[in-house]
């Protein structure tokens, strides 16, 4: 399979040079390499520039509301465990409006894969500061610089109970494809934060800036060590890129419905249920 097999007839509308091109290609490439046919893929999108990817990947797409990709993904996976269910949202969407859903979907350990396109800005609404904008970031809503502390999505995800936590880069296709493949193959909730450039609105966190402020996790990093992962996640000056944490825990859907595919199935109703009212 080839990544172009996942193209639709709709041309992307992102600005030339946008990090979303990289994320888009990497998702398609990962699906092609894993040989998952498009009709078995569900991608739930939030609202924003990343959300507009909904038109450009051939699959069963669900273009949800702002912040609301994760709960939809949970429902789809519960209904049909044979689907590959991915959620794609921007940083404003997932870490702002969708914060509560991230917190809880992580603790459910639902078997879905979250990819956050993190450009540290609300871009589609023309450039406001987002929950991950750096302190001092100047934008339309922070003309004298952001005074609110940015959230640390990796640390947040870890403490909420995510069983796969990783960071990658929109402009490093090889790394991104491998990370997404690992995330999809992981059984349980996977969270990949993808640092990306916003060429139109974010003149601070550019590709050169990211290259200077990130480093590849060493080969010897113990992915199963929670404290180590937290330590790495807390490094904010120079951020580690790679799989910070990966472990196995009981999966939500499996515990609720086993390995049953609910679609096409039935629910039992009978006299037995009425006994308590006799």
């Amino acid at each position, binding site marked *: 399979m080839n990544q172009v097999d996942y193209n639709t007839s709709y041309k992307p509308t992102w600005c030339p040079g946008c990090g979303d091109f990289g994320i888009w290609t990497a998702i398609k490439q990962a699906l092609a390499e894993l040989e998952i046919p498009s009709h078995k893929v569900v991608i739930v999108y939030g609202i924003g520039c990343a959300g507009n990817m909904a038109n450009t990947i051939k699959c069963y797409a669900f273009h949800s509301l702002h912040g609301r990709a994760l709960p939809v993904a949970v429902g789809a996976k519960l209904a049909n465990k044979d689907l590959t269910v991915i959620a794609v949202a921007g940083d404003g969407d997932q870490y702002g409006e969708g914060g509560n859903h991230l*917190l809880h979907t992580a603790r459910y350990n639902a078997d879905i894969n979250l990819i956050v396109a993190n450009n540290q800005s609300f871009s589609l609404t023309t450039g406001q500061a987002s929950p991950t904008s750096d302190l001092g970031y100047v934008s339309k809503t922070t003309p004298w610089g952001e005074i609110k502390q940015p959230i640390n999505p990796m640390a947040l995800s870890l403490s909420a109970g995510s069983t796969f936590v990783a960071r990658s880069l929109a402009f490093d296709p090889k790394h991104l494809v491998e990370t997404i493949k690992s995330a999809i193959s992981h059984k349980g909730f996977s969270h990949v934060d993808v640092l990306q450039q916003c060429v139109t609105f974010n003149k601070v966190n550019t590709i050169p800036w990211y290259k200077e402020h990130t480093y590849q996790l060493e080969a010897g990093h113990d992915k199963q060590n929670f404290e180590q992962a937290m330590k790495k996640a807390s490094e904010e000056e120079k951020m580690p890129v790679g799989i910070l944490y990966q472990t196995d825990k009981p999966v939500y859907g499996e515990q609720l419905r086993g390995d049953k595919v609910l679609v096409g199935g039935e629910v039992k109703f009978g006299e037995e249920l009425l006994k308590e009212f006799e």
Partner: protein
Amino acid sequence: MNNFSIKIVGPAGFGIKSTGVTLAKSLVRSGLNVFAYTEYPSLIRGGHNTYQVDVSDSEIKASKEKADVLIPLNLEALEKEKNNIEKDGIVICDETTKQQYDKTTKQQNIKIIPVPLIEIAKKHGGELMKNTVALGVLFKLLNLDLEILNGVIKEAFAGKEGVAEQNIKAVEEGFNFKLDKNFNEFNGFNGFNENNLFITGNQATAMAVTASGCQLYSAYPMTPATDILHVLEANQKKTGMVVHQPEDEIAAIHTALGGSFAGIRSACGTSGGGFALMNEGLSLTGMLELPLVIFEVMRPGPATGNPTWSDQGDLSYVLNAGHGDFPRAVIAPGSPEQVFDCVQHAFNLADKYQIPAIVISDKHLGESGFTISKEVFSEIDEKNHDLQLKANKDYKRYLNTQTGISPRTIPGIENGEHIANSDEHNEESFSDESSEVRKMQMEKRMKKVEELRKEIPLPKVYGEKNAEITLVSWGSAFGACLDAVNLDSNINLIHFTHLWPMPKGLDKFLSQFNKLVLVENNYSGQLGKLIRQETGIEIKNKILKYDSRPFWKGEIINKLKTK
């Protein structure tokens, strides 16, 4: 025989509800009809809880405002209820309660029968069993078969035989206590009924959801809808339904939508405040054209309101909620029989028209106990899933059709890939901002309202066709209205179960009646407003009750006298 009401009252934590349910079940098994109404404040301990069981050998639909037998479990409870006793009513209470009452109160016109409830209870296991002793006394008073009561008690304590035994001994001693009063209404009544159930509206809803083949139910706890969640959760292993308690109501509706998108029948449930949080999800459902059933079990608002009380104040809201124009169905059952029918209909309509169907009820229906024949639960409708299980390369998810309904594929079907797109979209489902596409899709979606309207029946009429006065009701006001019709042949009733869309020909239908009187449990007469909006007919006579209490037996007839 008229209603005969037995009211058990006391602070929360005294086992009032379980005693009430035991009593109600025993009476139903004795072949009688009961209607149980409960009041409780938003507390876990203390306060003033009531459980009233109205009994009759004929059909019974509404509670009397006052009690024939009051069983207060402490002095405070008696003080609070002393003005709610019928003229010839009696009070059964512990000896110490009567002593305290005589000392502190001047009001001597109520007949109190003191029984050593606590003394007897302590002999058999503890003071908490005084309720059970009182039940024994009651059964003697009413000449009922003690074995039936014992049967219910044994089942209630299945697995705890020791406790069951203690309770049965307590009941027996209560039954054998010498009283000097007898009620003759039950003399020689030797009924036994295996066919009737004692069930609340919420329990019936849970049964209906299961019978409708719903495979995913998601709900966040909110009074008075939570019992639906509890019953479905408890039955999961038997039914195979997936029941999910999410982080908030926003997740509740979106997870149900995810299930629907993937191809299974899904539903979510809540009360007014939770429904408020679901509004954007409702709008999304309309735009994506996915089937979804939403349960809104009302309580008095606005805001937190009276969480444990009842009213019908969210109708206008539910009809108009969610930004933008989009099709929906709104169905309002008024009794457990209607629940079983309406809920199945809601799921079928949601699937057929690919719309949200909101089933609206309230605490009065949800938490009151009704007598109903088991047979009702065997009327299971055929399910129409209406899915396109095969697709070719030309497949268009939002194809413009005559009816407005586009064929729907689900994930897993080859060539059926599409975007369930919250953006305005073209037939191929891609985001599209052009004027022609917008107009076309809006018209396509709204066509479904007119198609659906063709299937909506006119409301049923109860009573004599040519009655002088015609009550107009919806939802749980049904019971009290039907009661009025049974008591007075000058009154009949038009009762709506399907509120949106409204049926064709409603204006002609309504003009057949002599004098319409609107009966609702809300301040602004919301059904009246809807009827006027849809037909131009304004119902000038209104009986509106918005004190968080249901219409009592006889109340509607009394209010009509003053009109």
